[in-house]
């Protein structure tokens, strides 16, 4: 039990892929201009992480050491294709917005990193949990960054929720500040870097405060 708790804490906080390992920054910085995009990409990444971690772990004794990286990539690519096709059929508008960043999940170093560093050495149940926790930790950062950028950039939260939830989502959209002119910088790439830097700083600050 203690092992599992440790895996969870590792994925969500201590070894958070976005804040500590600083992996997978390309999609992290590119699609976080609002919460809905962030949730979409976070869910997709989490699904791929769980699936690839589990499969890699199950087949870890049959994969020869010399060619393990290409095989991991093939496995990850297969799951990304599944996610891409699913999104294309159920969330077509969101799929169009995320665009190239869905297929690019294949090259997300966080996923390959977990396959190599964890799943190829541990049992399948631990690997699945590790995938889930790493994915959730990554999604959490995506969502916080998305919320920050959306709020500062346009004064809204959960805009375009209908892309994810259909008609139910339309009522979710909140306009926090009325008559807000918008701060373009937060929506543009520099805003993503500044925002991520601030989140990393807050995390380090909290870690330093702890004895």
């Amino acid at each position, binding site marked *: 039990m203690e092992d599992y708790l440790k895996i969870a804490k590792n994925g969500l906080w201590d070894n958070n892929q976005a804040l500590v390992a600083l992996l997978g920054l390309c999609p992290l910085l590119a699609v976080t201009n609002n919460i809905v995009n962030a949730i979409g990409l976070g869910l997709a990444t989490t699904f791929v992480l769980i699936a690839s971690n589990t499969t890699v772990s199950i087949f870890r004794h049959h994969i020869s050491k010399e060619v393990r990286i290409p095989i991991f990539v093939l496995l990850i690519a297969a799951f990304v294709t599944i996610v891409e096709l699913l999104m294309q059929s159920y969330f077509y508008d969101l799929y169009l917005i995320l665009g190239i960043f869905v297929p690019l999940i294949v090259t997300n170093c966080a996923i390959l990193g977990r396959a190599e560093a964890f799943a190829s050495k541990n049992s399948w149940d631990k690997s699945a949990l590790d995938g889930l926790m790493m994915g959730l930790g990554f999604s959490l950062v995506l969502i916080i960054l998305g919320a920050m950028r959306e709020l500062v950039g346009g004064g809204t939260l959960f805009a375009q929720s209908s892309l994810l939830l259909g008609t139910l989502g339309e009522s979710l959209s909140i306009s926090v500040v009325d008559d807000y*002119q*918008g*701060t*373009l*910088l*937060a929506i*543009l790439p520099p805003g993503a870097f500044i925002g991520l830097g601030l989140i990393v700083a807050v995390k380090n600050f909290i870690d330093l405060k702890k004895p």
Partner: protein
Amino acid sequence: MRQVIYALVLGIGAHYYFFGWGVFLQIVLAVAVAIAVESTFLRIRKFPIKPAISDGSAILTAVLLAISIPSIAPWWLVVLGVSFAIVFGKQLYGGLGNNPFNPAMLGYGFLLISYPLQMSTWASEFLSLPQTLNVIFNSSPVDALSGATRLDTLKTQLALGKTTDEIELYSVAQMWINAGFLLGGLYLMIRQVIMWHIPTAFIMGVVVMASILSLSNHQFYIPPQNHLILGATMLGAFFIATDPISASTTPKGRLIYGFLIGVLVVIIRTFGGYPDGVAFAVLLMNIAVPLIDYYTQPRVFGQ
């Protein structure tokens, strides 16, 4: 730092003569915000507050930013800009002496990218104190009293296909403002507050690049003499590029640094999306400073 602020008086005076009280209001507001933000941040960082405020660096940053933005900009613009400049441009890097970028220009760049509309609406005539107060704090409509700068207009006109012979290349107000900053800059040079390298090289860069463009096709490109008296050329050359912290530190490096800023200013003005290029040119060359310094180390005597 205090000498630099005194030297700005002539340019600010010219600004007042043509566009009214706005410039003073912006400066007062900016300085107040700068002192407040700087002391708050120093208190959080548990640093002594008094020496950092009395060295005048935060005040200079605020003054430079205040005279760079339109004098009729709404009050929140200057508050945001100065806060960004002090917090993100200076304190987060570790305070005075550690910032790789010119804080005032970082604040200006932030404002220009985020609020392009407010940042390109300039006063077009002398505004009295009540008028200015109304515009800055009530954000009352100012269409009749405002417009784009001469550089901005020139660019739009050239993009529409007009040639330089057909349009007004000249602005009396901007010429006098630039002259004011030139005189103030020369005073600083005589008092040896700033070295001659950067301003001279900056102006050379502007003249060389503008001449090349103008000689290649004088109908499409603004001639060099007009580049010198439009926009923020003189302010940039003498007061912004010479910031001792973010500029190059070796004599040869200063020449390269200033010259390339001048070249970039003309390139950004001519081909870029924004009307003036001084801020982005300075920021771009700030990034290059470590490289320039590395390759222009003077040889130690005797080696």
